[in-house]
C-alpha cells in the first residue's frame, strides 16, 4: 500500500553528526537541525574526529563539509561508507563544482547541498535521504 501522505507525516527526530572545521558553520547547522526538531548527537572539526564519532555513535545522518585541514571531507565520507555502507551522509560545502559533487557521490554521499544552506534545503535533503531508504523497505 503506497502512503500518499508520506510528505506530510512528521518525522521522528534524527540523531545527527555535524562535521565542519568552522565553529560558526557547526553552530549554524546545529541551529537549523534544532529548528527541524532533530538532535545533534555530536560535532567534529576534522575527518579523523568524524570517523571516530561515527563509529562510536552510528548517527542517523551526517552533515559533512569538504574543505577541512588534514583529512578532507570526500575522503572522510569514503572511509565512513567503507566501514558502514548504510551511512547516510549529506555533503554541505561552498565547493560545489560538478567533478567534486560526482566525487563525493561516488565516495558514498547521498546528497549535496551548496553553502549557504537554508532550513528548507536541509529539510528537503534529509527527507530525500531518509525517504529513499524507507521507500526501499516498503512492500506493495
Amino acid at each position, binding site marked *: 500500500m503506497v502512503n500518499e501522505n508520506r510528505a506530510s507525516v512528521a518525522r521522528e527526530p534524527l540523531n545527527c553528526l555535524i562535521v565542519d*572545521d568552522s*565553529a560558526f*558553520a557547526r553552530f549554524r547547522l546545529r541551529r537549523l537541525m534544532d529548528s527541524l526538531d532533530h538532535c545533534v548527537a555530536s560535532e567534529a572539526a576534522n575527518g579523523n574526529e568524524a570517523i571516530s564519532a561515527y563509529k562510536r555513535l552510528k548517527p542517523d545522518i551526517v552533515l559533512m563539509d569538504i*574543505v577541512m585541514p588534514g583529512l578532507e571531507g570526500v575522503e572522510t565520507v569514503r572511509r565512513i561508507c567503507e566501514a558502514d555502507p548504510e551511512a547516510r551522509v549529506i555533503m554541505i560545502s*561552498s*565547493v560545489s*563544482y560538478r567533478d*567534486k559533487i560526482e566525487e563525493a557521490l561516488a565516495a558514498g554521499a547521498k546528497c549535496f547541498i*551548496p553553502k549557504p544552506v537554508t532550513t528548507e534545503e536541509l529539510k528537503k535533503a534529509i527527507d530525500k535521504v531518509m525517504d529513499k531508504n524507507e521507500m526501499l523497505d516498503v512492500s506493495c
Partner: protein
Amino acid sequence: MRLEFVKTFIDSTTHLFREVVCSEVEIASIRMRPSPVAGGEVMAIIGLMGDAQGRVIFDMDSRTATRLAECMIGEPAEGLTPMVRSAIAELASMATGRAISEINDGGVSLKMSPPTVISGANISYDHCLETLVAPITTAYGEVRVNITIQDLK
C-alpha cells in the same frame, strides 16, 4: 594575473554578501597594487592551488568584522570573539568556494585551503606579489578583497 578569474572572485563575493548578510554592496575602483593592502585589523586568508596559484585576502577593520559576524550569527557580539572570527573565516570561505567552483566548472582545476584569520593592529603582509584590490562597501563597513592569482607556467 588571470583577470577573468579576478572578476569571478569579485562577483562571487558581492553575490554572497547580498545573500548572507543581506546588504547591498558597492564596488569602488579596483586597483592593481604591488602587494596586498594591509591596515585592516582583521584578515581572512585563503590559499589557491592547482592549474593556477595565489591567494585571496579579505581585509577589514574590527568593527566591520564584528558587525558582519553579528548579522550572520543573529545576535550581538562583544568584539572579536572566537565565534566572530569563525564567522568571518566562513564568509571568506564561502565566497572563495563559490568562485573556484565556477572556475573548475569552466575547465580550470583550482583548489582552496581552509581559511586562516589573523587580527591585530598594524598587520602588514610582507609577501609582495602583484595583487588586485577590490574595495567592497557594505552596510556594515568596507571589506577589501585582495586577489593574487597566477598561472603555473
